[in-house]
């Protein structure tokens, strides 16, 4: 209950900050929507010249792309601003303030402010996804929709944990902004069909080492009845594994933290 109240306050405060910079908010929202629409257009243009890509039809590929966008926007809207604050606080020394608060460090690293423009731009990929699902010839069973939502949550947890694991290097190397590039690569791989990895071993490397396949391929495959059991289990295990690893890494990293400002 205590943490829920904290979350409620954080949501309120972030909303108040949005209300001050309304024009910027509207433009950022527009930018995110343009981003989604142009991405979909790219897929549409490729499919003007081909019928299918590695067994993915035009609508299926757009569903995959939108799934990746949903995970991306959820992370960017809810988690990324807080991760940026975290790495900034370690290099500036203001991480001290987090340490003295009677709140879990993991909670503080992942929550705080919300980027409403990124969060609300979820609407564009969700609308396109629903439209494309309705354009499919087959009906989608309810179980598939539930599995899709479960693995969408798993994807956000996995992405959050993986980035937190990377950012835990801030305790050792102080400035780790360069690592944000890995996030863009991860998202760029996630929106492409897993078939780009010809070898199974490489594919599993992109599940357990650089976890991009579980981000969009697994939920989209489950929704479209294209998924398989080993991959689904691997995605769930990967989510749990990275969550545990990142928690341990943060706790270990904190031991080596020495306030930069003092």
């Amino acid at each position, binding site marked *: 209950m205590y943490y829920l109240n904290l979350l409620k306050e954080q949501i309120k405060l972030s909303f108040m900050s949005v209300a001050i*910079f309304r*024009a*910027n908010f509207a*433009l*950022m929202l*527009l*930018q995110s929507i*343009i*981003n989604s629409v*142009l*991405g979909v*257009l*790219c897929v549409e*243009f*490729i499919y*003007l*010249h*081909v*019928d*299918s*890509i*590695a*067994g993915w039809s035009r609508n299926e590929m757009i569903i995959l792309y939108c799934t990746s966008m949903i995970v991306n926007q959820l992370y960017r809207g809810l988690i990324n601003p807080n991760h940026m604050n975290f790495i900034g606080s370690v290099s500036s020394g203001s991480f001290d303030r987090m340490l003295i608060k009677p709140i879990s460090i993991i909670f503080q690293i992942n929550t705080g402010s919300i980027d409403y423009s990124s969060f609300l731009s979820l609407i564009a990929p969700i609308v396109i996804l629903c439209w494309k699902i309705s354009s499919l010839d087959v009906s989608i069973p309810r179980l598939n929709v539930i599995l899709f939502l479960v693995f969408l949550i798993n994807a956000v947890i996995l992405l959050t944990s993986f980035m937190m694991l990377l950012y835990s290097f801030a305790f050792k190397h102080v400035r780790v902004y*360069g*690592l944000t*590039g*890995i996030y*863009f*690569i991860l998202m*760029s*791989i996630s929106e*492409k*069909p897993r*078939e*780009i*990895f010809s070898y199974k071993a490489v594919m599993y490397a992109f599940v357990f080492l650089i976890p991009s396949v579980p981000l969009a391929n697994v939920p989209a495959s489950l929704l479209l009845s294209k998924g398989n059991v080993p991959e689904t289990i691997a995605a769930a295990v990967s989510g749990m594994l990275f969550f545990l690893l990142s928690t341990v890494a943060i706790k270990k990293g904190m031991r080596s933290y020495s306030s930069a400002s003092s």
Partner: protein
Amino acid sequence: MRKYLYSFKLYLLASLQYRFDTVLGLIMSNISMLITIFFWIIIYRSNGTGEINGYSIADMITFFVMSSLFRTFILSSGGFEISDMIKSGELGKALIKPHSISMFLYWKHLSNALFEFLKQFSFLLLVVPFFARYLTWDLSVPSAVLVIIYLVTATVISHLLWLLLGMMAFWLEQAQAVMWSFAVILNFLSGMFIPLDFFPRWSVRVLELMPFAAFSYIPAKLYMNQLSVAEGAYLLMVHILWIFVLMALNQMVWRAGTKKYSAVGG
């Protein structure tokens, strides 16, 4: 001119200082390119065809390799810098200095672009022996000259375009949102994600005449010999015309903006 060339040299030397960042950036940009190449390989394989829309697989790989190399000459940082200067009030200090801010920013960011290009080019020289057979090698001397002129043109056009957007900070509290929106559209219309000839037929000609095409699409097509020298030269005239249009627009916006500027905090 000497002062601009001096700043060019200074910033080039500064770029060499952050080696870890340089290596990290090099790895990241090349992984992204590799993923795009893998994606296109799977498109060709799954369609069992050697050619899609006039592009063989070697053409497509060459297009993305060359585009990523040429894109290093897109000078966008000047726009972000001027926007920050306006917002923070720093522009006040810059205004009293005996040099043109636009020229100073151009040479500063050109040095960064040149460094990025050399870095990327050296990396390609290292890896090219391993995938030379996947690339097309059709560059003629007239095309090579035209490619170089295009790259110079691209630096000027992109600098002027981004500066224009950065100057929106004179009127907007946050010009960054406008600039990011523009960046997304620019990437799309410059053929960063897919070559422009994959767009619907009616739009290709219009897009070739737009300033974004000069950034990477036209130079890459010239390199691959998919665009004749005559056609390339004709399009170059149009892009040079764009430079004059953008210069005039920059002048107008600059004059109107500096009249409104109040150096908050500066």
